[in-house]
């Protein structure tokens, strides 16, 4: 499952539905994700944007009963084909989580964790990987003298950048970010946003965000999701759907859909 380079889209989500048991949480989502661009997923809580994100690197497989219909192409290959190993998918498509979650290990060990999993044993190689990853994550200058310190001793923003460095260390080409700044203060948020702008030259980034200003600031494309309902009372079921997808500029200035317009102008959600 190596990238062949000819495919213009890093990830092509084609008509997927995500089920939890018999409950269809997200229906019929299709999003073409361009290479070396930042795509933002926005929408109200419960609209399924995180669910779709976690479907892309098959993290949903870890939830008992979760199932995906439709296909997600990664450089032209279906990630849900029977011969695809989710362990390899997650290495190629890295993920940064909502709450910074460094391991209770040293900064060095946090970044070296991934490469070690993949069989890198040589001390010097590990050192190189750790240094370059921390540099890419704009954290090196702050921690280069404290690599033995616990990752948990860092501030929230530094922890999140450590998590980004950890993700970069296994050399993915897509990075999924699930509300990476929701637990951070504005200055740390700004650091992460600047970092994303630097990283996008080498990586394809998909970010879920609740902050529409953030989507406008960082993303090239935006997908707007919303909640659909059917039935009343106890019969009521809710699911998430993609409402509109397009260039960020267009979504926020000339939304094609009335619901999108309401949401971005703050009338609901």
């Amino acid at each position, binding site marked *: 499952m190596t990238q062949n380079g000819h495919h213009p889209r890093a990830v092509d989500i084609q008509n997927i539905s995500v089920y939890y048991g018999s409950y269809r949480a997200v229906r019929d989502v299709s999003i073409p994700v361009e290479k070396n661009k930042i795509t933002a997923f926005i929408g109200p809580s419960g609209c399924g944007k995180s669910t779709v994100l976690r479907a892309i*690197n098959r*993290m949903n497989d*870890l939830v*008992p009963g979760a199932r995906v219909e439709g296909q997600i192409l990664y450089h032209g290959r279906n990630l849900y084909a029977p011969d695809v190993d989710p*362990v*390899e998918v*997650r*290495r*190629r498509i*890295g*993920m940064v*989580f909502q*709450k910074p*979650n*460094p*391991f*209770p*290990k*040293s900064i060095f060990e946090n970044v070296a*964790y*991934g490469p*070690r*999993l*993949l069989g890198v044993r040589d001390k010097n190689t590990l050192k190189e990987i750790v240094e370059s990853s921390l540099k890419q994550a704009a954290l090196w200058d702050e921690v280069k003298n404290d690599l*033995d*310190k*616990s990752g*948990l*001793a860092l501030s929230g923003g530094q922890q999140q950048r450590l*998590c980004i460095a*950890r*993700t970069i260390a*296994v050399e993915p080409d897509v990075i999924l970010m699930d509300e990476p700044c929701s637990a951070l203060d504005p200055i740390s948020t700004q650091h992460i946003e600047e970092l994303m702008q630097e990283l996008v030259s080498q990586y394809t980034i998909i970010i879920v965000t609740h902050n529409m200003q953030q989507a406008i600031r960082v993303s090239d494309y935006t997908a707007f999701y919303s909640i659909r309902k059917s039935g009343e009372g106890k019969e009521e079921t809710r699911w998430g759907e993609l409402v509109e997808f397009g260039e960020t500029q267009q979504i926020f200035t000339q939304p094609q859909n009335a619901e999108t317009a309401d949401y971005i102008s703050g009338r609901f959600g």
Partner: protein
Amino acid sequence: MTRIEEGVFRSMLIGRQDKGLTMRRLYAASFGLAILALVLLALTITNEAFGYVALVYKIEPETISDRPLAELNETELVALLVEKAPGQLPKMVSDALSPMDLQTFARASLKDSLAGKQIPAEYADKTPADIPTDERASVMGQILADNLTQEQILELIEAAILQPTVSESWPLFEGLFNRRAIEERLVELFPDEITRPELRFKSWLRLEMLTKPMDSNPLVSGVRTALLGTVYLLIIVVLTAFPVGIAAAIYLEEYADPNKWYNRLIETNIRNLAGVPSIIYGLLGLQLLVRFMGDPATGGLGLTSGQAFGIIDGTGRNIITAGLTLSLLVLPVVIINAQESIRAVPPSYRDASYGLGATKWQTIWRTVLPSALPGILTGIILSLSRAVGETAPLVVVGASTFIVQDPGLFTRFTALPIQIYNWTSRPQAGFRELAAAAIIILLVLLVAINTIAFVLRNQARRRLQV
């Protein structure tokens, strides 16, 4: 509009604060009660393990020497030994100075059997058996006098000639605070003033208890064999219950599907098993390990009794079966505790690991287990403490009460709690006190184990926090 009335709020505020104060006092009282219980325990044990005794000698010290024995020097003391107990001298030398047993010692040259010790040069090449009988005692005495201190020789005289026995014993506090009653009792027991023994302070807890085997005389009896038995039992528990328990916990938490009815049934049952009385485990051990897997003479498989490994006279009532029984006993607690610890690992650690392309096993081994380790070690502390103190299952499995030889894996055995239990029920003076001393040794062992586990746990915890 306000719906919370100011007056009601005010009047209730005092009551609310008072309630807090009352509860705080209750908690303090509970804590005080616990401390009191501990102090009482310590006092009781001290009271028993130290005390006063009236010793009666088989041969009175005054009858063998004009001067008090404590004032005699090594040579004079040895002369007494040579005179009164000539036949026992080779054994004394062998026991005190040679690593060999008596048979080997008798046939080995002195320079071999007593390497590094002072020996008369003219006898260096001879074996004790070579030395003419009439010279042997004095040669052996000479060796004792050259190599032992005065106190050591004094002890030999006590054991070989004087042979004191405890006629009557009193606990420490009675001896300290009620001396008069004891003196009266002594007069009553020994009306004749000349033969009346003198009241002596006695510490039943002696360092030699650790190295001396059991004896029918409480004055010289030790706990070596029981202590070894307990240590072997612990090693078996550590080697079997912990790997199996932790592995089972990993399976239940990480692999077993909690929605399947049989997995839920198994979990519920493990929880119930943790509360089953220990004697039931003794019965299980007796039936399964001692009988079914044990002695072929009674229809067993010969696995735990050693026949399968070429041991001829094994019965299945040994360290192996007892250790495995204790393992079964602590297994549920180990499993439950390890499960709780594994469950307490934040899901975000797992997410992070999987997100980097870790397999399930890598995630468990590199992230889940290191994070769960402090909790797992806490469970191990509790389980080991329980295993050390268990008596009932050992009685059922067939622990012996009087073992003089160091136990092997397939031999008969005893353990500290068994020994204590046995001693407390003996009628002769001195054994209850000896039991108290053994309890102190058991407690020290327990504290030592817990300290090791505590240090390990804190190291594991520090590694997580840095």
